[in-house]
C-alpha cells in the first residue's frame, strides 16, 4: 500500500506528520503536487521510532548503556523532525488553507492533548490536577513551538543570513532565565534547526543520498555513539533538552554558549548522517510515515502508564537486556499508533476539520 493510497483512503493529504503539521504538502517543488516522496515519510517514521524508544528508555537511565544511548538519540531525534518541518515550510504562505491548518493541526490538538495529558497525569499518575495551556506538559511543547516557528516563516524568508541570526537568537536565549511559559527556551533554542530546514533545497538531500555520503554517515553515527558513551557521564542530559538557560544549568555564559554551539553542531551533523541512511525508495513503513503525529502525541500514554504503574521496576530491565526489550517493544508500538485505524479513530483530536469555527473560505 503506498502512502498516497493511505491518505486517499483516510481522506487527508498527509497532514498528520509530525513534521508536516501545518499541512504543507510533502512534495519537492518540481514534483507534481500529488506525489509524496517516500524518503521523507521513511525519515519521519524512523525518527518517530527513535522518539518512542527514547521516551521508553527514560526510566532505565540508571544503567550506563541506556544513559549513553539516551543522550545519543536525544541529540538528533527532535532536530531531525524540526529540520523536516522547516523544509516543508519553505513555501509556507498564509493562504487560507494553510492558516487553517495551523489552527486545526497545531493549536487545537495542542489544547486537546494538553488537557488529556493533564487529566491522565492526575488520574493515572496521582499528580495534582492542573491544566496550564501556557506551559506545555511534556511532549506537547512541539506543537506550540511548531506553531510559533511556522508563523515566523515569512520573516526568515526575507533575511540574508537567517541561519546565523537564528543561531545568535538561540545562543542569546541561553543567557536569559526564561520562564516555562510558551516553552520559550526550546522554541528559541531549537529555532536554528527549523531555519536550517527552511533553507534546505532538494539538491541538499540528493547530496545525502550519494553512496559516499552514506558511508560517511555510518562512520559519523558510529563515532557519535562512541562519543556519547565517552561523555555521557560528564555532561547533563539537559543540554539535549534545550529547556533551561545557562544560569539554571550552573555554567557561565561562555561555557554555556560553547556547549550550545557544540550541541547545535553535533545535532546538525548527526541529523544529516541519520537522513543519509534513510532509504529513499518506498518501504513497508513509508505509508506509516504520514501519520507520525499520531504516534508522537499518543505514545506518551502507554509510556507514562508504564512509569506510573512501576512496570519498569524489574532489575533485569535496567541493563542491556532491558534496552533490547524496550527497543523491540517500541517498534510494534510505533507501528500500531500509525495504523490507519488509529488515524480514523482519532482524527477528531489530531487533525480535526472544524469547519464550523471558520469563516467561509476567503481569499486574503
Amino acid at each position, binding site marked *: 500500500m503506498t502512502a498516497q493510497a493511505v491518505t486517499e483512503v483516510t481522506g487527508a493529504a498527509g497532514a498528520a506528520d509530525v513534521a508536516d503539521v501545518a499541512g504543507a504538502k510533502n512534495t519537492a517543488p518540481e514534483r507534481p503536487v500529488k506525489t509524496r516522496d517516500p524518503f521523507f515519510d521513511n525519515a519521519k517514521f524512523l525518527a518517530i521510532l527513535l522518539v518512542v524508544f527514547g521516551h521508553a528508555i527514560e526510566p532505565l537511565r540508571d544503567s550506563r548503556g541506556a544513559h549513553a544511548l539516551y543522550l545519543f538519540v536525544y541529540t538528533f531525534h527532535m532536530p531531525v523532525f524540526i529540520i523536516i518541518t522547516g523544509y516543508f515550510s519553505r513555501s509556507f*504562505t498564509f493562504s487560507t488553507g494553510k492558516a487553517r491548518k495551523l*489552527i486545526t493541526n497545531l493549536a487545537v490538538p495542542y489544547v486537546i492533548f494538553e488537557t488529556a495529558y493533564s487529566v491522565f497525569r492526575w488520574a493515572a499518575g496521582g499528580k495534582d490536577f492542573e491544566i496550564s*495551556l501556557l506551559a506545555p506538559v511534556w511532549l506537547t511543547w512541539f506543537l506550540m513551538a511548531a506553531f510559533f516557528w511556522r508563523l515566523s*516563516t*515569512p*520573516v526568515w*524568508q526575507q533575511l540574508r543570513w537567517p541561519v546565523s541570526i537564528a543561531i545568535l537568537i538561540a545562543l542569546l536565549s541561553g543567557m536569559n532565565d*526564561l520562564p516555562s511559559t510558551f516553552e520559550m527556551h526550546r522554541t528559541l533554542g531549537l529555532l536554528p534547526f527549523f531555519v536550517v530546514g527552511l533553507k534546505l533545497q532538494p539538491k541538499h538531500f540528493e547530496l545525502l543520498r550519494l553512496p559516499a555520503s552514506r558511508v560517511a554517515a555510518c562512520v559519523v553515527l558510529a563515532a557519535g555513539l562512541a562519543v556519547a558513551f565517552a561523555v555521557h557521564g560528564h555532561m547533563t542530559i539537559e543540554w539535549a533538552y534545550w529547556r533551561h538557560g545557562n544560569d539554571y544549568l550552573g555554567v557561565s555564559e561562555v561555557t554555556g554558549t560553547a556547549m550550545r554551539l557544540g550541541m547545535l553542531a553535533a545535532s546538525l551533523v548527526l541529523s544529516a548522517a541519520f537522513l543519509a541512511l534513510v532509504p529513499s525508495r518506498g518501504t513497508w513503513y513509508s505509508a506509516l510515515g504520514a501519520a507520525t503525529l499520531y504516534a508522537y502525541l499518543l505514545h506518551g500514554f502507554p509510556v507514562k502508564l508504564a512509569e506510573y504503574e512501576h512496570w519498569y521496576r524489574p532489575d533485569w530491565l535496567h541493563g542491556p537486556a532491558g534496552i533490547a526489550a524496550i527497543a523491540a517493544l517500541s517498534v510494534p508500538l510505533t507501528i500500531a499508533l500509525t495504523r490507519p485505524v488509529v488515524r480514523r479513530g482519532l482524527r477528531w483530536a489530531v487533525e480535526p476539520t472544524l469547519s464550523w*469555527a471558520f469563516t467561509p473560505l476567503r481569499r486574503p
Partner: protein
Amino acid sequence: MTQSAPPAVPPQAGSAPFETHADRPAERRDGRPDTETPARPGGTRHKQRDAHLDNAKFLGVVLVVCGHVLEDLRDATGAHALYLFIYMFHMPLFIVLAGYFSRSFTFSAGKARKLITSLAVPYVIFEIAFACYRWALGVADKPTISLLDPYFVTWFLLALFVWRLSTPVWQQLRWPIGGAVVISVLSGTADLPTMMDLYRMLGLLPFFVIGLMLKPEHFELLKRPRVRVAGALVLAGGLIMANLVHRKMTTEWALWRMGFADLHVSNLTGAGMRLGMLLAGATLVAAFLAIVPSRHTWFTRLGGATMYAYLLHGFGTKLMEARGWYDPSWLHTVPGVAVAMAAAAGFAVLLMTAPVRRVTRWAVSPVIDWAFTRPGTYAGPPRRNA
C-alpha cells in the same frame, strides 16, 4: 534589492509603524510592480492616505505624550481622573488602528520586510538606547539590556510584531473577537512571567482583532453628524465617569500589565473588570474616532510620523523625571497641569517634524536592504492550480 535609494528627504507620508504596512500597499523598494499585494477585501486599494485616520493617529500620539507627562502630576486636582480617562483609550486607539491597517496583511516579501525594518529593528535599537540613556542619566547603575523584557514604550513594538504575525489566524476564525476576548480574560487569570510583556500582548489583543475586523464603512458610520454628537457626549460621559471612579480603582486596570492575582482580586472580579475595561475602551475609541476631523488639517501630514513621537518622547519625559523637573509645586496645580499638557503637545509635534524625522530615521524606520535576500532569491509563494 536594487539600489533605488530612498530619497534623501523622507517622503511626507512617513513610515511610522503605526501604519507600517497597509497605508502604502503599492510601494515596493525594488521598483517592480506590486503583484503580490491583493486588492483589499473591503474595496479598492487606496493609494491616498486617509486624512481621518492620520488625524486620529496624530491626536492619539499627542494623548500618549500628555499621558506620560500627566503620570508625574497625578496629585494635582483632576489630573488623576484625566490620566485614567486618557489611558482608558489612547493605546487601544492605536491598537485598533494597527489592526485595521493589518486587514490585508499577507506575507508578501515587502510586508514581511516591513515587519523587520519598522518593528523588530527599532525595538532592538530603542531597547538598547533606553538602557544606555537610563545609565547615562544615573537612573540605572549599568546599562542592562534585556531584549525580552521591554522597557517603557517599547512593549508596543514587540506586541505589534506578534499581533501582526498572528493576523492570518484571526482572519480565518468565525468568531475572532470572541476568541480574542476569551484569551484576554484567561490571560488575566494566569500567572504570566514579566517576559515580553505578555499580559499586555494577550490582554490588549481584542483591540487588535477588532481593528482587523473593521471595514471602511464602519469608519464612514463614525463620520455621520449624529454619531459625532454622540461621540462627544460619550467622551464627556467617560470623563465624568473617570472622575467618579478614579479613586475606587487602580489605574493598573488601564495599564494591562498585571494579572488578577497581582491586582489582588478574584478571577471573577478580574474577569468582570477586564470585560468592563475592554467595553469601555472600545466605546471610547469609537467616540474618539467620531470626533476626529476627517478633513485635511495642518497636522494631517504629521499623522504619518506618529512612531517618531511615540518612541522619542520617552527621552524627554524620562529626563524630566531624572532631573526632578516635575518638582516645582506650581506644576502640580490646575494651571500647571494645563501648561504641562500644552508643552507635551508641543513636544509631540516637534518630534514629528521633518528635521527630527530626518535625523532619527535610521532608528525608527531604517532601510536595511543589505540584510535582506536579493530580489529573485525568494520567488514568493508558488502558485499552484492558479
